[in-house]
């Protein structure tokens, strides 16, 4: 990606709150993000951190009866927050394509694959039925389906998981949308299929130049595909930067803990790092101070900011709270005592 690429989405101070027992709780709490043309922005974080909530807010699919979305999501001078449905329907599918985690449940079991792909063409293009059919076959071909005319006539249950996810991608790119949101597109697939699907996404991106918001909790997937990364915890971004910044100089304690708990790191018989405690639920979430503080209890309260904000430690590399400066893992006590914060501010 080139930073001079055209800005597609500009999210500013987004809050998305769900109603639980007549109270609204922010599942997305003041998130600001940008997505450019040709960029793959990865959103990582554990279950319940608010990744899907953010994606659903962008495409405007929250039920207004129990959800409150505030802030701005600017797309082409248009604020998607509070946009009226008729206008939004012209954007959904046409300007924003969406890929879901479980391709079996995301496809209508009673409709033929061809029909499901053609559906978005009906509402966003002037193609007639013949032309739509041709376009469907072309799309199936593009996503690597071996026999497009056959598959177009099949039903979702007749396809394998990998094929279904290809179909989902075909649906998402049918109108060549400038923005693609992929919510855990490979979580339900095994590694070889995952690799194929990720390659496919990248190829497609090269071809149509979309910006992709890739949601995942697999750090390997992020390191292999993303240009930029935003790490989410409890509804907030705790660290953000280019994929090199975040993986080669991770700063926030949460990012560092996650990387440390991966079994891949060439250690073999050692114990894996465990993050103490659990991800808090929406209702029980602590909303003052550093939200990650309870999970690193050995760090003194003084190391945290009272109202943690994102600090730009390097151009484009943002970290929440100042605790990263002194953070150490319990088994690194000596290093910390020597006053040498790990990794921090090494600069580049």
């Amino acid at each position, binding site marked *: 990606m080139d930073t001079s690429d055209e800005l597609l989405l500009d999210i500013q101070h987004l809050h998305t709150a769900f109603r639980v027992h007549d109270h609204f709780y922010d599942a997305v709490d003041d998130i600001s993000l940008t997505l450019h043309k040709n960029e793959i922005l990865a959103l990582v974080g554990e279950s319940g951190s608010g990744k899907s909530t953010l994606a659903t807010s962008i495409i405007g699919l929250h039920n207004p009866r129990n959800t409150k979305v505030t802030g701005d999501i600017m797309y082409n001078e248009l604020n998607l927050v509070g946009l009226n449905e008729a206008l939004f329907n012209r954007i959904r599918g046409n300007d924003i394509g969406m890929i879901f985690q479980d391709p079996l449940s995301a496809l*209508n079991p009673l409709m033929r694959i061809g029909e499901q792909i053609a559906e978005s063409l009906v509402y966003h293009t002037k193609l007639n039925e013949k032309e739509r059919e041709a376009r469907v076959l072309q799309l199936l071909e593009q996503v690597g389906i071996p026999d497009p005319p056959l598959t177009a006539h099949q039903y979702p249950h007749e396809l394998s998981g990998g094929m279904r996810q290809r179909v989902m991608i075909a649906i998402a790119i049918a109108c060549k949308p400038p923005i693609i949101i992929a919510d855990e597109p490979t979580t339900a697939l095994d590694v070889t299929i995952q690799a194929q699907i990720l390659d496919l996404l990248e190829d497609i991106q090269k071809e149509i130049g979309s910006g992709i918001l890739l949601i995942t909790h697999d750090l390997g997937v992020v390191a292999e595909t993303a240009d930029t990364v935003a790490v989410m915890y409890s509804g907030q971004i705790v660290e953000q930067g280019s994929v090199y910044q975040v993986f080669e100089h991770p700063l926030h304690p949460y990012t560092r803990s996650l990387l440390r708990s991966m079994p891949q790191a060439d250690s073999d018989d050692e114990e894996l790092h465990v993050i103490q405690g659990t991800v808090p639920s929406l209702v029980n979430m602590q909303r003052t101070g550093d939200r990650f503080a309870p999970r690193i209890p050995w760090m003194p309260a003084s190391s945290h900011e009272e109202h943690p904000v994102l600090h730009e430690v390097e151009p484009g590399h943002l970290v929440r709270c100042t605790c990263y400066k002194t953070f150490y893992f319990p088994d690194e006590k000596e290093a910390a005592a020597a006053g040498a914060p790990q990794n921090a501010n090494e600069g580049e």
Partner: protein
Amino acid sequence: MWKTILRRVILMIPQIIILSLFIFLLAKMMPGDPFTGLITPNTSPSQIAKLRQEAGLNNPWYVQYVSWVGRAFHGDFGMSYAMQRPVTEIIGERAVNTLYLAILSVIITYVIAIPFGVWAGRYEGTWIDTSIQFYNFISMSTPSFVVYLLAIAAFGFGLKWFPTSGSVSVSASGFFGIIASRIYHIILPSILIGILTNASTVQYLRSGIVDNKLEDYVKTARSKGVPERVVFNRHILRNSLLPIAAFFGNVITGLLGGAIFAETIFSYPGMGKLFIDSVNGRDYSVMTALVLLYGILTLLGNLLSDIIMSIVDPRIRID
């Protein structure tokens, strides 16, 4: 698919044989026989015994069973002792009457149930949903015969809007005249059946819609920019109608069995009334024929449901 249907039909044969044996033995065990009712102080026991002998009632049960099945196989269920006419003929007549009633009640049932189910599901949790649920609750908990009795008293005997018995009036003439008279006779009972028996359909549809609304593929449809109205009709509603379609086979055959209460109270000469009459009159030949017929209808209803299911749901294949 035809092969599978044929196989299913062939597999029904042993089921039907077991059923017929069961029915036959049950009828044998009932106290009394068709001649019990004929006994008056004037009939001599020897006369009755002679009749019994002629009817084959003194043979061992299996001889009686085999001859009954043999004749039944040729469509001969014997004579109705009460009406002194061939059972097949009586059932044939009654079946036509029941068919009229069944068709109209099914239409009315669905005409009411489908919109109600759709509204309740679509506007789940609103006053519309609550009112429909309340109506369902009332219609399920009210004994149907009470409603029939009240209705016949009010609209039949009281206001005299509708006839109170029979299936066609004797004075009707001409093809259309007869049809019109028939419809006139079934309007009130079929409306009442329609109003009182749609609760399960409404509930199926409602919960189907409520569940399907949350499915991922509905989100996918919305994410394509499909207008909400189309999302509802094409994705949510179509998928929610599946169980209703599947149930249709059983509904149809259920109604063909006759609406026992409605036919009896409206003195409508259909299968349901015939059944009640045959039980009361110990008319075993009619009764056994009817029970056997109901059994076969149930089996066919299940098969019909499976066939419908395999047509409307591509995930289900019956081959």
